[in-house]
């Protein structure tokens, strides 16, 4: 009886040396580095910061959606 073994498609950019554990740790670290930590009145300097303004506008959009608004 033959068995179908599902093929797992790996993203082509995966470095085979990377362990999944390292990725989990990296994700947790980055989340904290970017959204946590003390913010003193310095400049938050990140490359590709130009797009931030658009993101903030989107956030305002989320908070303005009223609860229980009817669907069409």
């Amino acid at each position: 009886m033959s068995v179908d073994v599902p093929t797992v498609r790996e993203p082509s950019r995966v470095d085979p040396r990377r362990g999944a554990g390292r990725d989990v740790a990296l994700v947790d670290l980055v989340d904290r580095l970017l959204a946590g930590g003390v913010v003193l009145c310095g400049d938050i300097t990140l490359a590709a910061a130009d797009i931030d303004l658009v993101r903030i506008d989107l956030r305002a959009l989320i908070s303005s959606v009223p609860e229980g608004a009817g669907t069409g």
Partner: protein
Amino acid sequence: MNGDKLLVAPPRATAVPDGTAANALSRRINADPEDVEQGLAQLVLTIVELLRQLMERQALRRVEVGDLSDEETERLGRTMMLLNERMNELKEQFGLTDRDLNLNLGPLGNLM
């Protein structure tokens, strides 16, 4: 230091929520400023995905409350299902993961 931060490993099937974190990370933060199309796709899909989730959450709330007819529930469900599938197709087409579409707003936290 990198590997020894993992105290409890997720089961293999889930390892990272989606895709490879490091790759998602570099796409999310080191976006090539020259790749305007990719950057635009990411932005547009983020907005669409946000709206899709808002709508889906509203749909679920209506189902929970129970004020929809069977026909309305079915119609709503089909629409959300198709929307979900279409989004997955688009994400795959542009090589974007859910993490890519969750823009970090700095002091405001994550978009979603």
